[in-house]
């Protein structure tokens, strides 16, 4: 099988004790693209990953690689025969092997010299050639995760599946490791699946994002499309903060800019500080969070909305600010964005 083939899951279901943890899920992993599976704990993301990996059988539906079925009700290619690389949150490095031997673990068809060269190449590719002799307990978390990615890629897998691979890392390490690792994955040109509960990580790292909840894939699209055109409030909420307000609470001249509805959900970007804005709102509270300032603005005595601002000065409570509305960030329940 060529490595550059898509992997399709069609109507896949997996049940534990009669309860469906993955229900009728369909997802395609395209070569050279990273697909993120986003959802809360217990959404069924890791189970779907295990189904792709062949660690579990399907109870309905099928999974195929390049059109050849690998998981159906009647056929199951076990994990060790699928050539699918796995990356785990706990790194899963073999504690008795040093970095270079860990990377060479899956290269059983090569002789010792070739295996060493290949392992060294992948360590080098992930910036770890100087740590080749180190054992897992001597490596930092970021280094361990890069070794595990090198190990998976060195085996020339047909796809790579990553289960919360960066969650165990320190915040300061995370972005650097993620950048190096995902660049190597993309360069390999194979399909890649990234399971995460972090919406910003999914949108930053992936070409496509599938939002999952209660075992069901709610929507799958590009990060941009998902953020701006979620098909449901659940999807919209999964991708970023929302504030719900009644139509009557909005300034009158904003009501004409949005379609009729009882309530609206606004992203913080929907409200812009704009000297030429068509509404004046009072600041309830404002807080700087590194480069952005989060501002809470009063609509009525009981309702407020959030805005984000850049700039050197943080407004004070009681200040009046001129604001305008960006309707593409306003969603009406239960459906799509207004734009």
């Amino acid at each position: 099988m060529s490595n550059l083939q898509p992997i399709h899951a069609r109507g896949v279901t997996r049940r534990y004790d009669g309860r469906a943890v993955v229900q009728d899920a369909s997802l395609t992993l395209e070569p050279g693209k990273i697909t993120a599976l986003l959802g809360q704990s217990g959404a069924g993301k890791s189970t779907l990953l295990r189904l792709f990996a062949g660690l579990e059988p399907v109870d309905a539906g099928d999974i195929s690689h390049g059109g050849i079925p690998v998981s159906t009700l009647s056929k199951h290619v076990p994990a060790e025969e699928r050539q699918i690389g796995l990356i785990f949150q706990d790194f899963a490095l073999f504690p008795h092997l040093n970095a270079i031997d860990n990377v060479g673990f899956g290269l059983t068809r090569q002789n010792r010299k070739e295996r060493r060269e290949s392992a060294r190449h992948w360590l080098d590719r992930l910036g770890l050639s100087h740590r080749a002799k180190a054992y897992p307990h001597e490596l930092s978390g970021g280094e361990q995760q890069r070794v595990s990615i090198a190990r998976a890629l060195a085996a020339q897998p047909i796809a790579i599946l990553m289960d919360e691979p960066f969650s165990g890392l320190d915040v300061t390490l995370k972005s650097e490791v993620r950048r190096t690792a995902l660049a190597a994955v993309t360069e390999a040109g194979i399909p890649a699946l990234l399971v995460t509960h972090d919406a910003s990580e999914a949108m930053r790292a992936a070409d496509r994002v599938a939002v999952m909840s209660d075992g069901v894939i709610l929507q799958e699209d590009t990060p941009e499309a998902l953020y701006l055109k979620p098909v449901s409030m659940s999807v919209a909420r999964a991708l970023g903060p929302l504030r719900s307000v009644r139509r009557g609470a909005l300034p009158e001249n904003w009501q004409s800019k949005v379609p009729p509805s009882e309530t609206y959900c606004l992203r913080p970007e929907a409200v812009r500080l704009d000297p030429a804005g068509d509404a004046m709102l009072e600041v309830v509270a404002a807080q700087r969070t590194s480069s952005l300032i989060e501002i809470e603005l009063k609509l009525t005595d009981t309702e407020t909305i959030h805005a984000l601002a850049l700039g050197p000065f943080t407004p004070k409570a009681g200040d009046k600010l001129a604001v305008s509305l960006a309707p593409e960030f306003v969603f009406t329940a239960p459906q799509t964005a207004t734009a």
Partner: protein
Amino acid sequence: MQAIRASSFHPPRLNPVALITLAAACLIGAPVAFALFTGVIGGGGDAWTHIVSTQLLGYTMTTLAVIALTAALILLFAVPTAWFVSLNEFPGRGFFEWALILPLAAPGYVLAYAWADAADVAGPIQSALRDMTGLSARDYWFPNVYSVPGLSFVMASALFPYAYLTARAAFSNLSLCTMEAARSLGASPRRLFLQVALPAARPAIFAGLALALMETAADYGAASYLGVQTLSVGIFRAWHSFSEPAVAARLAVLLILIAFGLQFIERIARGRGGIQQTATRWRTPRRQKLGALSGWAVAIGCSLVLLLSFVIPVTRLIWVSAETGLGQGQIVRPFLNSLTLALAGSAAAFVLALTITIGARQNRFSQFVGRFAAGAGYAAPGIVLALGALFILSWTGFSVAGPAALIFLVWIYASRFTAAGAEPLNAAFSRAPASLGNAARSLGASRFQRLVRVDLPVAMSGASAAAIILFVEMLKELPATLMLRPFNWDTLAVQAFAYASDERLAAATLPSLLITAAGLGPVVLLSLQLTRAGQSRAAG
């Protein structure tokens, strides 16, 4: 087709791994099963009726009394020392931290010989007392070592380090947040200990205590030497002196029930509580520096425990040995025999421990049979296992002679101690990430390759600790060796026991000291390892 799919995920119970584990479990469990079977099914006859009416109650009550008193003494020795060493700073703390484990090197029967001599009317302690006070032997009362309290003291001295170790680990693992929360709520140091630390450490303390008490119930050498009529002594006497193996088997059932009872009590005492460990926001409490007076008082207390449990008896043995010269009796042969037997037994137990540990990771069936058999073997006293082996021998028609007996002895050692060897191997697996197997599968490793390339090497990281524990335990083993060894084939333990029983203590000292010295190296190594592990955890 559905069946094929099912078979890849729910392996049938008797796949090759399960079969090998089952075979290992049968090997481990057979002696205890045979002893139990014979005890329950075999008729005791008139001898049993006689024992029931004359000695059974005495054996049972004496055994229970020794267990109860030993438990109290172990708690007295182990818990305060563990508390002060773990959470307080006082003069000599670093030394006591590891030195209090040393008594593990000396078996109970060796301490019994030493204390019986040291505390005798003509011994150095009472002689010094009379010299200092001018009293005669009839003018004062002195504790009698040849008694239930004397045996309990000796057993507590030899075995308290089990509870000390588990208590020390539990106290060191107390969460700083819990302790600080209690302090902020106005808890005094006394209340902190009694109402926060002690309840949190209770499961660990009981685990160590249960282990020590099972060893106490299983002891034959010390009880026999000190003339305390416990069940173990009764079993040996029924088998050896009265040639009534069926009676011995019935008594063995009682002893096994007591051992299982102790395990049951430990389970109940453990309850649902325990130490809450959250990996991320968890820090080891910093040690509190004690005031000068209380610091020295604690140091004296710890010294007293160490003196009584190890330094005085071992010094007395060295003294007697030096007084009478080292050339007493033939020592090289028993030394080599002990070494051979301990090495062969360790190797057999190690292989079995490895088999059940790896089997346990493959499927639940293997996990259950392996752990059950090893647990039963460990709970059963050596004397009971030896009895089981003798029943198997008589059932199969073999005789206890020559190398065959040694093979049986190695088997009994393995049956008794596999669980002790499996523990560090299991710990090695539990330290490894859970996803290792899946990672290996994703890299194309078959079941056999995973066994050879991942499971075995991971388990081997706990091998040195397992080997040390097995070797020391087997070096000290007495009752099974006494019952099963070929004629005129003595180990150090058997030789020391024989000399001591013949009132030839001087001759018994050298083998006793050799056993202790051989155990001392591994115990010091283990102690330093544990202490260092604790220090690095506290630093991290």
